[in-house]
C-alpha cells in the first residue's frame, strides 16, 4: 500500500484509472511519487507533462500542475513551461511510441539542449491504447496487430539514443525492480539537466497475449530473468547479451543546462 504521503499526491476523485488490472504503469507511477516525496517536492511547484497513450494518462491522476498534450509533443510543451519558469520541477511521462516514434524529434532535441526536465519513458514495446500495434521498440520477430507475421525492423535502444543525443543522465530499470526504478527517477530529478529514465514495463493485454507473456506475472518473471546489471554486462559478449535487458545508470554527467544558460544570457544582455 502507498504511504499516506504518496497517497496525498493522487487525485483519487478522478479514479478509477484507465489501466488494465496488472498493468505495469502503476508500479512506475508509485516509484515516481515515492521519489517526489523523498525529495520533498512541493506539488504546486511540480509539473507533470505527458503526451498521448496509456502511460500519458498518468498526468491526470497526479495532484500537481499537470498537462496532457498532443501525441509525441509533450517535451516541446514542457520545454516552454520550463523555460518560462525554470524554478519548477518538470517531469515528462511518456510511452515508447510517444517518445521514439511521433515524438522522436522532440526527444533528441530535448537531450541535445540539456534542459532540466526528467523524461520517464515507460517502454512496453507496443501501442497499447490503440490495440497493440507495433512501436519502434517492438523487438524484431515479435507479433503485434500491425506485424501479424512478426516485426521485421530493428528496434530503438532508447538509452543509447539519449546518450548519443546528449542527455546528462540516462538510466534503465524495469517494473520488476521498483526500488531501482525509484532510485533512478530520484537521481534523474536531482540532476540539473535532461534526464532519461527508461523503465521496461509490460502490456500483457496486447503485447503479452501475442508473445507468450499473457499474465502480468509472466512479464515480471521475464524482466527478472532477462535483466543484466550494467557492471555484469560489461564482461559479456554481444551474443550473450542478445535479448537481455541491460539495467543501470549509463550516463551521469554535469554539463551546462539550457535554462541556466538562458538566464545567464539575459543577465549578460541586461547588464550591458
Amino acid at each position: 500500500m502507498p504511504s499516506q504521503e504518496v497517497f496525498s499526491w493522487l487525485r483519487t476523485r478522478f479514479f478509477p484509472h484507465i489501466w488494465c488490472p496488472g498493468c505495469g504503469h502503476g508500479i512506475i507511477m508509485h516509484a515516481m511519487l515515492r521519489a517526489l516525496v523523498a525529495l520533498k517536492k512541493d506539488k504546486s511547484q511540480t509539473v507533470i507533462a505527458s503526451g498521448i497513450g496509456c502511460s500519458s494518462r498518468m498526468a491526470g491522476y497526479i495532484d500537481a500542475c499537470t498537462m496532457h498534450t498532443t501525441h509525441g509533443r509533450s517535451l516541446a510543451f514542457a520545454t516552454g513551461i520550463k523555460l518560462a519558469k525554470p524554478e519548477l520541477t518538470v517531469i515528462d511521462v511518456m510511452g515508447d511510441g510517444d517518445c521514439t516514434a511521433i515524438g522522436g524529434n522532440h526527444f533528441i532535441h530535448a537531450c541535445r539542449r540539456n534542459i532540466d526536465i526528467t523524461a520517464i519513458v515507460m517502454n512496453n514495446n507496443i501501442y497499447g491504447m490503440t490495440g497493440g500495434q507495433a512501436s519502434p521498440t517492438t523487438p524484431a520477430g515479435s507479433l503485434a496487430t500491425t506485424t501479424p507475421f512478426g516485426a521485421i525492423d530493428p528496434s530503438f535502444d532508447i538509452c543509447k539514443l539519449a546518450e548519443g543525443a546528449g542527455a546528462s543522465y540516462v538510466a534503465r530499470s524495469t517494473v520488476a525492480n521498483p526500488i531501482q526504478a525509484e532510485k533512478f527517477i530520484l537521481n534523474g530529478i536531482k540532476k540539473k539537466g535532461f534526464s532519461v529514465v527508461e523503465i521496461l514495463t509490460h502490456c500483457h493485454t496486447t503485447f503479452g497475449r501475442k508473445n507468450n507473456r499473457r499474465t502480468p506475472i509472466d512479464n515480471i518473471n521475464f524482466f527478472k530473468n532477462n535483466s543484466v546489471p550494467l557492471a555484469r554486462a560489461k564482461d559479456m559478449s554481444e551474443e550473450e547479451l542478445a535479448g537481455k535487458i541491460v539495467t543501470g545508470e549509463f550516463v551521469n554527467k554535469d554539463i551546462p543546462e539550457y535554462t541556466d544558460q538562458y538566464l545567464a544570457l539575459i543577465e549578460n544582455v541586461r547588464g550591458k
Partner: protein
Amino acid sequence: MSGVAFWQGNEAIAYGSLAAGCRFFGGYPITPSSEIAEIMAEELPKLNGRFIQMEDEIGGIAATIGGSVAGMQALTATSGPGFSLKQENLGLAYMAEIPIVVVDVMRGGPSTGLPTKTAQQDVMQARWGTHGDHGTICYAPASVQECYDIAIKAFNAAERYRQPVLIMSDEIIGHMREKVVTPKIDPSKLVNRKRPTDVPEKFVPYRPDPQDDLPCMASFGDGYRWHITGLTHNDWGFPTNNNDEIEKKMKRLMSKIDRFRDDIVEYETFYEDDAEVLVLAYGSVARSSLRAVNDARVRGFKAGFFRPVTLWPFPDKELEKLARKVKTIIVPELNCGQMVLEVERAVRGRAKVVPLNLVNGELFKPEEILAVIEEVA
C-alpha cells in the same frame, strides 16, 4: 515609449507584440515570417522574456503554449507550411483555452508553393484548419501601422477570451516598409488574463464566471494545481464522456466568441453612403482596391470600399446592411475564391457578388480592379 519608426510589417508585429506585453516566443524559421523570430530573439532577453528556436514548427507552437501556461503572454509566427504543421496544437490551445497569438505571413501554396511571393490562400485554414469546432478570432492587417496596432489587439483578445488569436498577414504587408507611430502604451488598456480569486483548494479551473461565461486562468507555479488536456473535459479539466458535460464545453467554445462578436468585429468603409459598386478587400489587396475605388470616384463611378479587419468573426451583419443598398460587390483576393464564400453567405443574394482572383504571386494593380468596377457599374 512613444515614437515614430520606419518598419516592415514583420517588425511592427514583433514590436507591437512586445508593447502588448508578449514575453515568450517559440518558433521555427520560415520565409517570409522569419524577421519576427529574429527580432524576438534579440529583444526578449532584454525584457527578461524568453525566446526559443524549436526543432520544428510543431514544437514552436507547443513551446509557445507551454510559455503561456506558465504565465507569459506568448507568440509564434510562421507561414503557410508551418501554419499547416501547427494546426493540431492550435486545436489543443482552443480546447484547453490557452491564450496565444499566432501570426501567419501568407505566401503562395499549396505545399512549399511560393516562399517569397504573396498570397491570401490560408484564410479559410485560419477558420477551419484544425479539426473540430471552435470560435475563431482572426485579424488581417493592411498596413505596417496596423500590424503594430493589431498585434496589441490580438494579445488583448487572446487574454480576454482565453483562446488563440490569429494574425493573417501576407508577404507584401510583412516586407513592406512604412511609417509607424507608436503611441505611449496605457497599461490600463492592456488586458491580462483573469486570475482566480478562490483559494487553491476551491479552484475549479474551467468553471466559467457567470458574468461573462469565461473561466479564469491560473499559471503553473502560482500555487494552483490543475489539469490541462486536449480531451473534452468538464469544469474540473478532467476528461469526460458525459453527454451533458461534452455539450456544455463544446457550446461554450463557440458561444464565447458569438457572445462578444460585436466587441471583436472590426471593419473599415469608404464612400458607403451612395455606393452602387462595393469593393470588399482585406490585407495587401485592400490597398490596391482602395486606390481603384478612389480612381473610380474621380471618373464619376459611385464606387465604395469595405475592408474586414477581422476576417473571423466576419462583419456579416454590417455587410448585409450595405448589400441592401449596393448593386454589386467585387471581391478581389489573392486566392481562387475563399472569403468570397463568406461574402455570399452574408449578402444572401441581396447584391450581385463578383469574385476577382489572382494566384500568380503578384498583387493586383489598381487598374485591374478599376477595370472590373467600370465593367460592372
